């Protein structure tokens, strides 16, 4: 990959604040559903914990994140955005919306917002799957963010395979 120029990652004050004082951080013991996206091999991984009530409303959300400041900030902001929302509304959140909510991501960090939304959508899907419930508004086809998360995980698999073969050599 050719990088033509670099800048000093001008994180905005909101990202810096969420990095320093993340909201809704930590494992949730009574979570209804847990979803993970990304892989530490790529330096980027998120876990979401959601507590969902019988009306399909997200009562609580929390996260853990292995990643850069943007990864931490976007994960944290997603938990804020979905709190108290019905799952159908939470599903409508896009990575661009998340980027706006944190005051704009540097382009090189778009994938952090994408991964966070990918993890959220994965959590919602998992919830309905566990419940074994048909949901008319939930598309069968994976969304852009879910596909991107999968792509990163596939890449990680390729990388770890490559490393293993090199170790064997």
């Amino acid at each position: 990959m050719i990088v033509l120029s670099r800048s000093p990652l001008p994180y905005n004050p909101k990202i810096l604040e969420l990095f320093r004082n993340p909201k809704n951080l930590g494992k949730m013991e009574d979570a209804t559903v847990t979803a993970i996206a990304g892989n530490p091999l790529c330096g980027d991984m998120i876990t979401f914990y959601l507590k969902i009530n019988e009306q399909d409303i997200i009562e609580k959300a929390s996260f853990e994140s292995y990643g850069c400041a943007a990864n931490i900030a976007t994960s944290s902001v997603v938990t804020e955005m979905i709190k108290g929302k019905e799952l159908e509304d939470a599903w409508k959140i896009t990575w661009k919306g998340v980027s706006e909510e944190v005051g704009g991501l540097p382009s090189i960090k778009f994938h952090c917002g994408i991964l966070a939304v990918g993890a959220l959508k994965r959590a919602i899907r998992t919830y309905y799957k566990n419940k074994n419930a048909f949901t008319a508004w939930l598309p069968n086809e994976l969304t852009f963010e879910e596909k991107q998360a999968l792509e990163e995980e596939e890449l990680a698999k390729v990388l770890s395979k490559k490393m293993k073969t090199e170790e064997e050599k």
Partner: protein
Amino acid sequence: MINNVKELLRAHEGLKHEVYLDIENASITPKEVVDAMLPYYAKRAYGNPTLTHKPGWEAFEVIMESAQKIAKFLGSETLEDINFTPGETEANNLALMGTTLSMKDKGKKLVISEIEPISILQITEMLKRFGFTTTKIPVDSEGFINLEKLKDAVDKETVLVSLSAVNHEIGTIEPIKEALGIVKDKSPQTLFHTDASDAYGKIPFNARELNLDMATLSSYKILGPRGIGALYVKEGVQIDRILEGQIGTQRLWPGIENTPLIVGLTKASELAFERFEENVAHMRRLRDRLIDGIMTGLQDVRLNGSNGDNRAPDNANISFLRCEGEALTIELSLSGVYVSSGSACTRRLLQPSHVMVAIGRKFDEAHGSILMKVTRYHTEEDINYVLEVIPKAVERIRGIVGSTGV
């Protein structure tokens, strides 16, 4: 964008102690060096050294004396061996491209190691387009080049071997003398270049005694001003210029010489070599304190590079597991400790540092690697402060990671 940076800087206000350890990526220029440079901007020697007037002759005099001094630090008596360039990147480009230009009819093969600096790697990528193939010699888990593989790789078609004397990232002191012997035994006409930017002024390094063909020097890595470096080219070794323009005093680099920067590099060299043993002992003592303090004070840490005498005295490179490097550099910065990381994020690439990968570090180990270099100006108090700040920063970042990725 600039406003965001202003806000980031505001977040650093009120720091009581600051310790800059990112010498790999840029350095301070100490007052002694700046003071030595200042007269050359407007007081004297501000002329073009090729012209026939007093300020020109003054410039010629100081540039030649500077070259003579630097040649001497490399064990050479010949000032013509020194070619000033605008930095390490340019010197490396000159060495590799200049050699391939002058020897293109003798062969199309190059040999480097897997852990060379980016400038060397990128030049060999570029030279592919002109039909040159490059073999990359692997290294072991401490970063030492595999001499057997080097022997296998070199043949009569090899025009150049380029191996750093000290690795820029993990500080491994390479067996350059043995490597050179192996290369010349197999192919006497093959030129041997070393990027000595992390060796010069830090370990005993005598280019003439080693009988190297070329060696790159960087100014900022020995606390000289940036924007200047040099390529040592042994008398009799012919390489081509890679830039054309106004012919100056420098055989291999056109354009008007930057006299104050040359003076700065020379002053920085003098300061590094004047009390060489003392400086090195000081760096080693602080470096050891730093490494020992981290390795004994924290869990899940790995030292990257060699843990013995074959490590450059200034280099500390440690991986903090369950800790992403970019997040850690920001957290440390907010406490006034300035370091860099080999993580994919800080590098803006999908993969972490190629040096970490080459020594067999797993990607997650590489993402959590932190590079620190100490100088003769650092103090015990500085290291104490760093050792106070790092565990807190690592603990906080690990707290965000929780059980994710474990």
